[in-house]
């Protein structure tokens, strides 16, 4: 009788253990999601036509896919494109607008360790809104996009190649030492940061959005450029900012192919910023000064 009871108890315990194990989630493999909207407002000849956004999307999606897969992560992409005035979504014809972009973001299945990279190449309005169509009713404001991203799990990195895109950047926790005059950068030094950062320490209010790092092509008062003649033949085929961004990520511009770094390498958000800063043409840097979210916490984009 006692032995039978022992066996019954053991069997019940084993069954309970098996049930618990089967209910636990499998280990989550981290994911990189690339969402890109690139608009040329075509066809060529239209007054607001931009030649290079489609190429910007092509090289960035190729490079980010290579980096994600090379670092052992799952890669997902959502490509909203307008080329020669024709709109496609992931290669299929679709007359999309910014509501579709927000819907994609809302539908993402991500967790805290996942990375969402949002890229935009196109016109920007005076208030920083993304011009997803020349019709004035189609504007994606910084608040709407950032609110949607903030409600999505994961770490978010925004690459914005548009005019006045610095509007997307919050006040931040740190102060840089940039001084502007007439819209252009005239000086940069830590000395210029001493007083603004002191005032910031005692000012009311907190930086409102966590887990979002923004890299914009220009300040909130500057225009960005569809292309820049920096002396390299291929440079004119890309947005001025995106050319340096893609290069900083590792894209082999000379041979027009994606490339990944060697082993034991970490690519962070501020690594990319410093590479763009180091390599960008000085005149372009003064007229369209790329801005970043200023935080002591760096975002690790890829690890090899």
């Amino acid at each position: 009788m006692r032995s039978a009871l022992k066996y019954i108890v053991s069997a019940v315990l084993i069954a309970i253990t098996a049930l618990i194990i089967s209910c636990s989630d499998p280990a989550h493999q981290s994911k990189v999601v690339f969402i890109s909207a690139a608009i040329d407002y075509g066809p060529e000849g239209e007054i607001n036509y931009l030649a290079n956004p489609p190429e910007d999307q092509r090289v960035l999606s190729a490079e980010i896919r290579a980096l994600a897969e090379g670092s052992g992560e799952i890669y997902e992409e959502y490509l909203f494109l307008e080329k020669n005035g024709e709109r496609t979504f992931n290669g299929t014809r679709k007359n999309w607008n910014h509501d579709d972009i927000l819907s994609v973001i809302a539908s993402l299945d991500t967790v805290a360790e996942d990375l969402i990279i949002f890229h935009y190449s196109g016109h920007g309005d005076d208030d920083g809104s993304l011009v997803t169509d020349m019709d004035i009713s189609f504007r994606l404001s910084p608040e709407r996009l950032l609110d949607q991203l903030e409600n999505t799990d994961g770490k978010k990195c925004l690459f914005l190649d548009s005019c006045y895109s610095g509007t997307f950047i919050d006040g931040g926790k740190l102060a840089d030492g940039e001084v502007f005059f007439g819209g252009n950068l005239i000086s940069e030094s830590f000395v210029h940061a001493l007083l603004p950062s002191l005032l910031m320490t005692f000012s009311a209010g907190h930086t409102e959005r966590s887990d979002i790092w923004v890299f914009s092509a220009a300040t909130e008062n500057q225009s960005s450029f569809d292309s820049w003649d920096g002396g390299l033949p291929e440079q004119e085929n890309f947005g001025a900012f995106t050319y340096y961004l893609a290069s900083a990520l590792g894209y082999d511009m000379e041979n027009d192919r994606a490339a990944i770094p060697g082993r034991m390498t970490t690519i962070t958000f501020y690594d990319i910023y410093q590479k763009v800063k180091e390599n960008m043409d000085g005149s372009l840097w003064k007229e369209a000064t790329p801005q970043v979210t200023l935080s002591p916490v760096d975002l690790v984009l890829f690890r090899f």
Partner: protein
Amino acid sequence: MKRIITIILLLYAVSSAYAVHWDPSVSGAVLFSGTLFDSSIDSSGTHWSSVRLDAELDAAAIRFGKRHTLSLPFSVIYRSETGITERMQLAAAFGGELSLRYRLMMTDSAAVSFSGDMAFLWYDTCDAGAWQFGTTVELEYYPIPQIGISLPFTAAWGRDEFTYAIGAAVRIRFWGSV
């Protein structure tokens, strides 16, 4: 003008009451540093751990009698980057710190000091910086008058940030007399 004269007279009175000595020193410290951010900066609530190195020059140090010292030490600080947590990493920072310190020699070889500190830290990663304000308590032991070892405990607050450090330091007092 009246105030300046009053201060000068007070200082003269204090220096007359005490033997006043110039008591400069240098020190180097290695500390374990922990940093916490407001959720608006870091939603993960991570305790960021790093190594901090301090090099201090305490040139403006005046000792009153045998026991009391007031000084304005200046330090150069380096705080290392941290490990990676949830795809994030606290970047390395370097900067300078100015303090107002009071040291009390409790015995001929043991002392305790209290200071109020203000530091500016610069993050090379994003070319930006921020201020911190805090306080340090340091327990000091001088096996010989010229050389001491100490245990500093520091706490500092910045915008949306709290950081603390605990470690060990070696101090060399140039004139080294008690």
